[in-house]
């Protein structure tokens, strides 16, 4: 397997695993929780390294991280439930505390171990092809592929199996509970998988890119559609495109791979924000302007319908208090629609325009 292929495939696995769960995080307004979990897993990993004697050990690290992730969620819920502080403040309290605990532990006990902080934050996806998994004396290929492939599969199964239950408890946890669907259990299951995914991706892509992949593709997809299944599919797609494009650009520009992937995802979000057919900022503005023009044109038609002679533009400007530019726009639109005649003596309706003006809007 070429190393390019391994890196890109690893990234696609990470982004897919993240997008599947991230879609529900975004809809639950828990984006901040993704941030919290992906940082707070650090002490769990450190503890697991310590327990396993400082060797590279993936299984204990995964378990430790999942435990730390759950600890974060539990602490945040508990703090929120005391009613003294809000949810976002509770997250802001818990995760720096846990993360700094992890950082302290790393700097105190693991100076010589290959857990270094840069790798924690930014990851080293470029090394993905070289950490190979060996079992029974066989070389099974890159470890990151196995871990992330497995996590992608688990997350996919989770979302497919519990799609209906996840949707209901995300939209209306009250009804989910009333119907006996255990939304709290689903919540912790979701958070456990986020923790597992975060730590699985940790070694290869680092905490920053995990957060980016958990939040940005789903947030982008949310802007593009109003249907949940489409949103999830689009989130996966945006993640995959960010992975591929990010890698290509990083090679071309000789930049950080993880950084470039996050940047591409951010750019895609920006594009969706501006141009989304559903709620894009520019799309909405264009639509508003078009509506304004059409409305103005209708006013103009109604006004002209009362006159048998061509009406000079000056008169119209006085009547409605429009700027000449605005009148020109309305005029242009009406002419293009064949409602206004191009009369040098002023503004005059065509037969179609007169018919339209006569009819109630």
């Amino acid at each position, binding site marked *: 397997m070429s190393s390019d292929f391994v890196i890109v495939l690893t990234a696609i696995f990470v982004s897919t695993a993240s997008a599947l769960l991230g879609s529900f995080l975004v*809809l639950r307004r828990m984006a901040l929780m993704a941030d919290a979990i992906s940082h707070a897993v650090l002490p769990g990993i450190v503890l697991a390294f310590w327990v396993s004697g400082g060797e590279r050990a993936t299984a204990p690290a995964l378990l430790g991280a999942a435990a730390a992730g759950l600890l974060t969620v539990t602490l945040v819920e508990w703090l929120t439930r005391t009613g003294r502080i809000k949810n976002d403040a509770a997250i802001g309290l818990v995760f720096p505390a846990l993360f700094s605990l992890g950082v302290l532990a790393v700097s105190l006990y693991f100076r010589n171990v290959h857990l270094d902080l840069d790798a924690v934050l930014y990851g080293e996806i470029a090394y993905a092809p070289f950490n190979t998994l060996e079992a029974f004396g066989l070389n099974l290929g890159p470890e990151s592929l196995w871990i992330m492939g497995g996590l992608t599969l688990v997350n996919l199964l989770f979302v497919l199996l519990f*799609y209906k239950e996840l949707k209901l408890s995300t*939209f209306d946890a*009250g009804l989910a509970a*009333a119907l006996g669907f255990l939304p709290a259990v689903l919540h912790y299951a979701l958070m456990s998988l986020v923790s597992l995914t975060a730590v699985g991706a940790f070694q290869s892509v680092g905490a920053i890119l995990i957060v980016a992949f958990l939040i940005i593709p789903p947030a982008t997809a949310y802007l593009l559609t109003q*249907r*949940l299944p489409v949103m999830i599919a689009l989130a996966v797609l945006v993640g995959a495109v960010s992975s591929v494009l990010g890698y290509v650009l990083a090679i071309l520009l000789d930049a950080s791979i993880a950084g470039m992937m996050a940047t591409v995802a951010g750019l895609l979000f920006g594009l969706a924000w501006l141009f989304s057919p559903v709620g894009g900022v520019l799309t909405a503005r264009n639509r508003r302007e078009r509506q304004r023009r059409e409305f103005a044109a209708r006013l103009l038609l109604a006004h002209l319908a009362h006159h048998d002679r061509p009406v000079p533009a000056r008169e119209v400007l006085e009547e409605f208090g429009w700027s000449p530019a605005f009148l020109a726009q309305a005029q242009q639109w009406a002419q293009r629609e064949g409602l206004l005649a191009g009369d040098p003596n002023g503004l005059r309706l065509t037969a179609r325009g007169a018919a339209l003006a006569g009819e109630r809007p």
Partner: protein
Amino acid sequence: MIKSSINEQASALPRRAAPLEVRDLTVAYHEKPVLWDVDLSIPEGQLCAIVGPNGAGKSTLIKAVLGLIPKASGTVQFFGQPLEAARRRIGYVPQRSSVDWDFPTNALDVVLMGLYGRLGWFRRPGKAEREAAMHALEQVGLTAFAHRQIAQLSGGQQQRVFLARALAQASDLYFMDEPFAGVDAVTEAAILQVMRELKKQGKTVVVVHHDLETVRDYFDHLTLLNVQVIASGPLEQTFTPENLKATYGERMSVGVGR
């Protein structure tokens, strides 16, 4: 046939279990109790109002009996059974503000959620469920809006979607938290129509209500609540100036003796 024979037997039986029977219910969010020693018995087949000032604990009462928030003490029975056994027979219309209407889904899909309980875990809604949901939407006059994104519905339409969802549940006992809040006269009439239809089918409807002017016209049974139950019973006996004064304090004297 079966139903009528049960009804005949009912008089012979000691007493048929009420749809909702609450004993000594106390609920506290923090130290201070929000509901204190509530006893309540809701009669079958009636439209029942729960009335009280803001913060009286009306929503809390509904959430506590449905097991959505923990009880400090007390017992709740539905049709003589604990909540777990009676879940399928209970429908719930929460306050409209309790969900995020920007969720990417349409009206039909929200109504379908009412049928999830019947489906249980893992099974997905199919054609039969979709037809039941469409029928529920028809009952609230929203057929044309089935595929409309829920954010693009008006407040009154959203309220009716919630109502349709409860109808789709085909329950025997309904809880509605302020279904008339912020809706216009037409929607109010439509919701009332549905409630009366439910009553005609022998269902029991418990409604948190705020408008004292309409209590007399809409309901058969009234519970006045302000942390404690001030009064609970048939409307004629409970809808009195003294009870309202005890519920709302001295300044209240609305529309009782008209």
